[in-house]
């Protein structure tokens, strides 16, 4: 264990009892020592990502796919320190919005109230057709900008996970075939 991991784990152990049951479960189940997020931030990202991509009848959701951990890893490895700051600012803005709308923190809000906060964040989403071929400009520090960042990072982490690729997308990739070509779907 490196010094940084140990510090992260120690910090997590100190804060964990303060958190609610569900995010606590998420943290302990994966025994994850976040490198960038505080335990409270990690729990928030974990919950936000699982609302964006929840478990459904086909596949498990973002929590099961450990999306928050992947986002933390990517941020820890990021070359641009501004990225971490944008995330921390964004998460604070989510908490501010939650207190404004629900009178309490995001994780202490009811599931319906949490969805309401995300719906509010999503209301600035650009749904104009024709923008698919372009990468959107750098996300701004606004709550809408952070929503796009959060959703982008969540989908990126989820659909590159084993769960996203196999359980959800049923990706087949390059199937090794011998003999006669078995067609587009050889399974």
């Amino acid at each position, binding site marked *: 264990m490196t010094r940084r991991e140990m510090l992260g784990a120690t910090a997590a152990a100190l804060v964990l009892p303060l958190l609610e049951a569900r995010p606590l479960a998420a943290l302990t189940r994966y025994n994850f020592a976040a490198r960038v997020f505080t335990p409270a931030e990690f729990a928030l990202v974990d919950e936000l990502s699982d609302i964006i991509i929840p478990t459904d009848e086909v596949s498990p959701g973002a929590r099961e796919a450990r999306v928050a951990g992947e986002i933390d890893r990517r941020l820890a490895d990021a070359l641009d320190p501004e990225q971490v700051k944008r995330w921390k600012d964004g998460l604070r803005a989510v908490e501010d919005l939650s207190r404004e709308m629900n009178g309490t923190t995001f994780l202490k809000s009811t599931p319906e109230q949490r969805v309401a906060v995300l719906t509010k964040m999503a209301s600035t989403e650009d749904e104009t057709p*024709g923008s698919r071929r372009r990468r959107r400009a750098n996300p701004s520090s606004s709550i809408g900008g952070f929503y796009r960042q959060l959703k982008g990072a969540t989908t990126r982490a989820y659909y590159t996970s084993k769960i996203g690729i196999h359980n959800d997308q049923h990706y*087949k990739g390059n199937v090794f075939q011998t003999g006669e070509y078995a067609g587009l779907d050889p399974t």
Partner: protein
Amino acid sequence: MLPGGCDIHAAFDSPTGLIYPAMDTGNLTLRTNSTAHEILVDPKTGRARGVAFVDSVTHKSLEAKAKVVVVGASTLESARLLLLSKSPQHPNGIGNSSDHVGHNFCEHLMGPGVTGLVKELVGKEHGIEDGRPGGFYVPRFRNLSDKQPGFLRGYGFEGNSGKSIFPDSTDRPGFGKQYKKEVRDYAGAFINMGGFGEVLPRYENAVSIDPDVKDAWGIPVLKFDYKFGDNEKKMAEDMAVTAKEMFEAAGIEVIGVDKELLTEGWSIHELGTSRMGSDPKTSVLNQFQQSHDVKNLFVVDGSSHVNASCQNPTWTIMALAWRSCDHLADELKKGNL
């Protein structure tokens, strides 16, 4: 090609195909961490006699002597080096008696295009289509047998479609179960293509030495006077209209049309700052990319291209460099250099 080269040397890259074989001859010395800032001139003959450079680790100024100087710093840096190399014999910069070094800067044009939805593919299960060769290409069709009223030259279309390991449907709106279902259903049902066109070479599109700004080594940087003209704008309009027509004719539902040009410089294929030609008054290099003014100076990169055409230039750059090297070897053998 893999970014960073192919580890097992199965694919072509410069180290595998060119640099290691050259080192194997025993005649190559590779000096890395060396930033060249001037081509030195023999005051008696006006010919190139070597290169002045800074060791980027020790910051020491050094010189390398040479019988022949071959510049291959890519279009912009090569122009910069030539323009920086001023001497009484070459007051405008070496090889620049024509006043064409830095001018006729051109590149490619991207941005306009179309996105379509193939309804028959919505909700289809993954096949093994990721194993197909990816992408498609529509070669240039404008101003070949026809004559467009609005613009000269032309463009091709580059596009792609099909399911891939990462779904192309993650920008569906919203979140939650509905979003997740839409990502699943729409994955691989999109098709898109965009134009890839020629920016005309024009004398007034130019790079020059910035009188004020210097880089980390104290070497003056380039200044850009470069703008798309009317031809580029008309061509871009045609790209968007034609792309839409093609998709509609193919029975694809058009869900988005991009009309905007990506900004100047976006498409990264910089070309044309030391153009090739037979007339020393209107060109910098001859057909062997050899300076008209200074016979022992060659520029073997995209600088020599007289126009950008609508294709990627790397193979042409390599083919021309090969030809230049053959010519150089011949000339050295004949004692002409």
